[in-house]
């Protein structure tokens, strides 16, 4: 697949574009912490203390990224996620508790892009936000020839072909489909069901279990150390995420 990106847009390294981040959290301390962590990453910060206020602000101000706390007292996290997604295409990073693991899948289906578990470090949040802002701004688009380089792996969807350390890697048709689904949403966590739909079409079923096996096969072929994956990262209980380290 060839991304329809104009060849001119290869800004590397690029100065940070003006970006605005909306923080939706009922706890002022958390808002303060997030604001402190994101200084230097975002040029403007918007804050909302309620879900309804956050949705209104997102519709009015078109932020480039939204940070949403799941534990808002005034509304259900999934519902807010859905409402935000209806009004904005900005990436949504959810702040969640570890015990809400079962909820995560529903959140991703509702349109969330990523999550950070409380308590988080400033560094961790900053890294996530930076990655999503860069992706949203188009800084990580493919090269002019449509290829993507991650470490020693070069993926070219136009041929299609994958080389690892200069030697060709053979991928089956299903493995290609899976890789494309992951790369298309790089940086985003794809749930098992989303990946399954992208590769095998509609529905669910027993075949879903094979997704794990295809991921393993893909890792065997692409990863330097398959048990310490760097390209295809597992989000426990949720799905997988393709990680492209930002180019230096």
């Amino acid at each position, binding site marked *: 697949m060839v991304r329809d990106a104009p060849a001119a847009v290869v800004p590397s390294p690029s100065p940070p574009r003006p970006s605005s981040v909306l923080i939706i959290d009922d706890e002022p301390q958390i808002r303060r912490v997030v604001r402190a962590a994101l200084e230097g990453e975002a040029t403007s910060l918007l804050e909302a203390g309620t879900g309804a206020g956050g949705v209104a602000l997102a519709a009015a101000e078109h932020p480039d990224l939204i940070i949403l706390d799941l534990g808002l007292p005034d509304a259900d996290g999934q519902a807010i996620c859905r409402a935000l997604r209806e009004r904005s295409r900005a990436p949504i990073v959810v702040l969640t508790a570890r015990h809400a693991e079962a909820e995560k899948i529903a959140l991703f289906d509702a349109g969330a892009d990523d999550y950070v578990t409380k*308590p*988080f470090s400033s560094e961790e949040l900053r890294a996530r936000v930076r990655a999503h802002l860069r992706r949203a701004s188009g800084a990580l688009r493919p090269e002019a020839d449509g290829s993507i380089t991650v470490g020693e792996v070069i993926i070219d969807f136009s041929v299609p072909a994958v080389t690892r350390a200069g030697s060709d890697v053979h991928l089956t048709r299903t493995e290609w489909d899976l890789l494309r689904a992951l790369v298309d949403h790089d940086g985003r966590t794809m749930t098992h069901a989303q990946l399954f739909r992208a590769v095998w079409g509609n529905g669910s079923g027993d075949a879903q279990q094979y997704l794990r096996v295809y991921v393993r096969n893909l890792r065997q072929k692409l990863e330097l150390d398959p048990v310490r994956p760097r390209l295809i990262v597992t989000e426990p209980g949720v799905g997988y995420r393709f990680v492209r380290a930002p180019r230096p």
Partner: protein
Amino acid sequence: MSIFDWSRSRRSPGPSVSDGTGAVGSLGVPPAHHVGGIAVIGWIIALIAVTAGMLAVRARLNEAHVALVFLLVILGASAHVGRTLGLGLATAAFLLFDWYFLPPYGALIITNPLDWVVLIAFFGTSAVAAQLLYRARAQADAAQARTVEIDRLAVLGAETLNAGRAEEALLAVAAVIRGTVGVDWCEVYMREPGHTRIVLAARSSGDQASDGPSVVAEGQLVHWVAEHGTEATVLMDGTSRVASSLHGFDGPSVLGASIAQSEGEGMFAEPSRVLFLPLRVRDRIVGVLTIGAAMGLDLSASRRRVLRALSYYAALGVERVRLVRDAEHAEALRQADQLKNAVLASVSHDLRTPLTTIKALANAIAASGDARAATIEEEADRLNGFVENLLDLSRIQAGGHRSDPGPNEAEDLVGAALQRVSGRTAGRDVIVTVSTDGDAPLVGRFDFSDTLRALVNLLENAYKYSPAASPIELSVCREAQWLAFMVADRGRGVPDAERDRIFQPFYRRPDAPPDVGGAGLGLSIARSLAVAQDGSLTYEPRDGGGSVFTLRVPALDLSDLETNG
């Protein structure tokens, strides 16, 4: 005992029949017809009058006339007053007949042998008639008495069922027993559910000061009766008697009659002050009924019969109180559970917010080069880990944790586990061995998140309890129907005596260095999570020193997988 037992005993009406007037408290009063002495005198006068009348016209009467007139009077007296008067008048009439109306007059001599026939036939007819009339009447009285008893039991049953609270129903039963059996006080004790303790559930007494079983000995008797299921009494002199257990309450005999067999005179032969009856529901002793009278109990057969029937209501009342308490207990447990969940959720949320602030701020300060801030962040992480473990443990032990086993791949799990511990095991070598059969992946049926947590706990445990220079080995292989994850370290191992205890919550090895973090929850949680998905977690000493913890989850065969997609 059965409520129907007493109906059997009515086949022998005997002399003890009430007059059937039915007032509470008079039931079972010994037989006594309260028809006054005036009636007796009246009938005697009537006999004298008809004798005198017939004497005046004696010449024109024959034996048949005299016999019929006398018979009329005797039947009337028998029906009106009773058998005794009837028989008495019959005897008197017999003599008068002979004296005045059979020649020779004025003497008790009979010359014509045929007159004997007349006299004997007359007397026989009178006696039989009096007896028949008496029996008919007695049966009518008995039937009426039964009707009253049944009415009372029916009313009691309805009241018992209608009473709003179970305790009130029991109180009503005690009051009815006291009134009906005519005692000073009546108490119902119940066995505490799940305990052997006996508590007073209802008490009905005439006045507050009346003596209940305040004496220690009587309290002990209640326990004895509840324990052995036999009756007991306290005699007027304060000594107590217990029934032989061979002749239990459920024998065909009325209360106490069984004791008559074993002790000769029986429990009711000696005047007693207090009576203890075991209360049963379906052969289970649910409580004890006691009745007492300061002046001594007056228990006639019919009162005992009624007491039996009423004690059945008391047993049902006790059972109802118990069932209500059981339901209330279950409700209380449910509410406590809800409260605990609310507390868990609140603790989880309210601790996390300040921890997030502390961690994030410490992290930011540490970035500017203050080593102390790094320590603050580490400690915040440690506190968070402890809280999470506590919450997990209470959730698992309360049964509130639900694992969702599904097909998952072993290397995926290993990768996620290594990723998760990477920050904490920095600088430590983890040697990973995945033993696959050719190119086939290792697949199992397990909950990814739970198994990940268990594996991470094992890795952290190995990291804590082994020298920093030694590598930790993590290997995965298929063992028959199991997928086995083995975490091996070169620590000091676990002494034989401690091997089961290491999986108990809050266990810390005696030789644990004081700076090792954790509260001894990791292995306990890991084992609980493994067991929850039909897996296991075991310990073995490692060859050459150290420990091997093996986490097993059910393996899965994917023989029909098309690898070429």
